[in-house]
């Protein structure tokens, strides 16, 4: 320290000043922090947000348990392999998320979205009464279905169970409602076609949505099982039901036909045509041991024609032989 004498010691004075400045900075930081979390700011908190019966507070625990943050970003923090999820709910909406999350390895089709919208809980949360209205309210859902519907994603299938999908949707609803001071920056470069043209040089031909397989004339189909597979894919059944012995959200279909199925009440039942038909149309009538009632959409009795149901059963029967 450069002291000329005891009284004239500029270095000591400078160091004291630095300490005082540091104290001041700390005071500013504490005051700013206090103001940041005052309830009068009106920032949304997770205990205020729910999706049906699912709480956003529970969803946050699911989000952390699967370590979503080390692939995705949330409020921009995390890894940079996968998209930012902050405004995902606002962009794609609850029906798209409900169709996507159970089997994230594939992009949902329009039929899968329609199925989810028949769920009163999902429709009420989305606040719409038709697919067209849904697309208007959540334009990201239409982009996703048009450009990617039915294709595979880079996301691995995650073994969500119970209400975890619904809880995650509640959590993403919460982050969507958060005021993040305008981040991410608003996109101002025009329509999707224009933006794609800017990136790829020429306008991409957007693939026309695949015509619903359910509309095809069954009488003309020689192979009922083949038609059943198409229907199952289109309606998103295969998003939850594996056919290769690796159970997803719902029970595995491979080698199911004719087997004895154990139910939650302890009894067992033969997986015949009657049982399978009932399980498609009234999913909660018999619950397989280890699975939760209410997870599978209950609107297939309105969505599927009797011939489609028969075709799906025939498809499941064909899996027995593989």
């Amino acid at each position, binding site marked *: 320290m450069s002291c000329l004498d005891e009284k004239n010691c500029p*270095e000591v004075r400078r160091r004291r000043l*630095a300490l005082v*400045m*540091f104290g001041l*900075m*700390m005071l*500013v*930081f504490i005051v*700013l*922090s206090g*103001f*940041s*979390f005052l309830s009068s*700011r009106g*920032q949304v908190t*997770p205990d205020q947000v729910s999706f049906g019966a699912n709480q956003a507070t529970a969803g*946050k*625990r699911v989000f*952390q*348990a*699967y*370590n*979503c*943050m*080390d*692939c995705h*970003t949330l*409020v*921009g*923090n995390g*890894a*940079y*392999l996968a*998209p930012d999820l902050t405004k995902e709910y606002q962009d794609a909406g609850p029906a798209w998320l409900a169709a996507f999350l159970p089997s994230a390895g594939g992009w949902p089709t329009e039929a899968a979205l329609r199925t989810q919208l028949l769920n009163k809980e999902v429709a009420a949360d989305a606040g719409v009464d038709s697919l067209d209205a849904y697309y208007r309210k959540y334009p990201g859902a239409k982009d*996703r279905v048009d*450009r*990617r519907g039915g294709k595979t*994603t*880079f996301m*691995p*299938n*995650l*073994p*969500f*169970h119970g209400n975890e999908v619904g809880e995650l949707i509640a959590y993403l609803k*919460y*982050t969507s409602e*958060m*005021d993040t*001071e305008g*981040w*991410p*920056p608003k*996109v*101002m*470069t025009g329509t999707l076609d*224009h933006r*794609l043209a800017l*990136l*790829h040089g020429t306008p991409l031909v957007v693939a026309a949505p695949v015509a619903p397989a359910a509309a095809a004339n069954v009488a003309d189909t020689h192979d009922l099982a083949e038609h059943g597979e198409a229907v199952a894919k289109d309606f998103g059944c295969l998003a939850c039901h594996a056919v290769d012995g690796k159970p997803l959200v719902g029970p595995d279909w491979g080698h199911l036909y004719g087997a004895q199925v154990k139910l939650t009440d302890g009894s067992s039942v033969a997986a015949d045509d009657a049982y399978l038909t009932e399980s498609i149309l009234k999913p909660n009538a018999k619950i397989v041991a280890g699975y939760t009632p209410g997870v599978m959409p209950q609107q297939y009795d309105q969505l599927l024609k009797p011939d489609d149901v028969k075709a799906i059963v025939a498809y499941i029967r064909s899996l027995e032989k593989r």
Partner: protein
Amino acid sequence: MMQISYQTQRLSMRFFMLMATLFVVQVGFGLLLGLQQADPTVLAGTLNFNVVRAEHLSLGIFWILSGFIGAILFVGPLLSKRELAAPWLIKFLFYALIVTIVWNMATQSLAMKGIAGWWEGQPWLQQGLEYLEAGRAAQVVILIGFSILAGVVLRTFPPRKEWNEIHWGLAIGVVALTAVWLFGMFYVSRLDLQEYFRWFVVHYWVEGVWEVIHISLIGFLLVLLFKVDVKSVGYAVFWGVALVWLSGLLGNAHHYFWIGTPEFWQFWGSLLSAMEPLPLVFCFWHIYLDAHQNRRPLENAPAFYFILGSVVLEQVGAGILGFSMTFALTNAWSHGTWITPAHAHLALFGTFGMLGIGAAYYAVPAMREAANFDQRIGRLAFWMVMIGVLGMALSFALGGTVQIYVYRTLGLHWFGGDLFPAMGVYRLLVAVFGFLLAVGAGLIAFDLATIGKRTRSVMANHRAPRAASGWGRPLSGFEAGIWLTAMWVFGGIVTLSLLSYNLPRVRVDGDPTLPYLLAGIGYPGLLLVTVLFVWRFLASMEARTATAPAVMPAAAVAVAG
């Protein structure tokens, strides 16, 4: 000084060896991440990207800490002029650290099944937060470990009246290391509040604690390497730490721009964290002064190489690249993109990793009494990891520049369809430079493990002396200032590149020419100047061996006080 003065200094050896081992494993996980970035289907379903990244980040923290602990244990007795207190506690700390690391590596993979180990509202096995992936159980053990380290250091140090600035720096460092860790140890249900406290740990560790330990250790290593005056280093350590804290305390605000906290943080964050490079410029300048004070020849080249690398990459990665994205107007674009890992790899591996390796290169030959150890592998490995990490930063930064345009300006968030093809070549380059870094890491681990043990060529260090002209002529202060200015000019171009995304021409018309052009000049220019400067600095140091007669190593050096 090529021998040790106190027997307990030998306890640092095991931590340096652990550091080198973990470094190799961590870089291995990094390579796997690079492959998964290039092809996301690699090991999908077996070892998902998020698990690999959690291992990569956790191990990165663990090996840097091992290096710190090793360095602190090595200099502790020298600073105190007595043996370490309670060496048995240090041995316990070592085994506890290994158990914790293995445990943490195992529990991270539970994320694939969604198991966090909830009990009493806390995630005990893994908690799925970036940088703080360790579950509560591991965190508790780590807290105990930090307390042991702090306790041993404080009990070893002489009475407080005899402390100089290096003692204060290290004492504050180890105590704050423990204290700040506490902020990551409770579950917060609000996202904004959770991020607020998560940055307490991440930012204040790096900016408030690691930086303080870094400055103190660099200062003392320079004292050991160049017999620099302790008082002049003490002056640099005090003002280095003071500037770090004065700018870094409120500088944390740059993490509070978009997490749901109020807008006023944008003002404080942009203002104060723009000053965060000041202590780094200060530290940079002092390493120049200290290294050039008495023109001593370079006895231990690898140790100085890595210490210089640490200070220069701190300047470039933490200082310049950090500066470019610390303003709300630039951060709005860089946030959540590859621009961030460009900064993070240089700042974390560069600053703190290289310091640990440099300290190991100083301590390990001294402990093995290998005064004439073969320094060629160390030199080569330095250039491999230096070029490797700079190349990775360049690939991340240029990839990030494209990513901002596609993702934020055009709003095309379909990674597989639009973003990945657009970033394609850079995703590949990250892995290529990562491979170079990995080979360098392997060399470092091999060299540190076998220094003084392998049969070496007697002539190994007697290579043709570098001429003290051209690149080897003495580096003047004026010239060092020119180099530093050149780095900051390119840093300014990088900042303008990020700023230009706000222009209507880019943001509304969707024309990326300007940001691409500025980034295309700024990043390669910055990193090229960095390599050339390090080359120039080291060449001038190497030339000293040729001009000055070799000085016999002093038996021990009188320090402290």
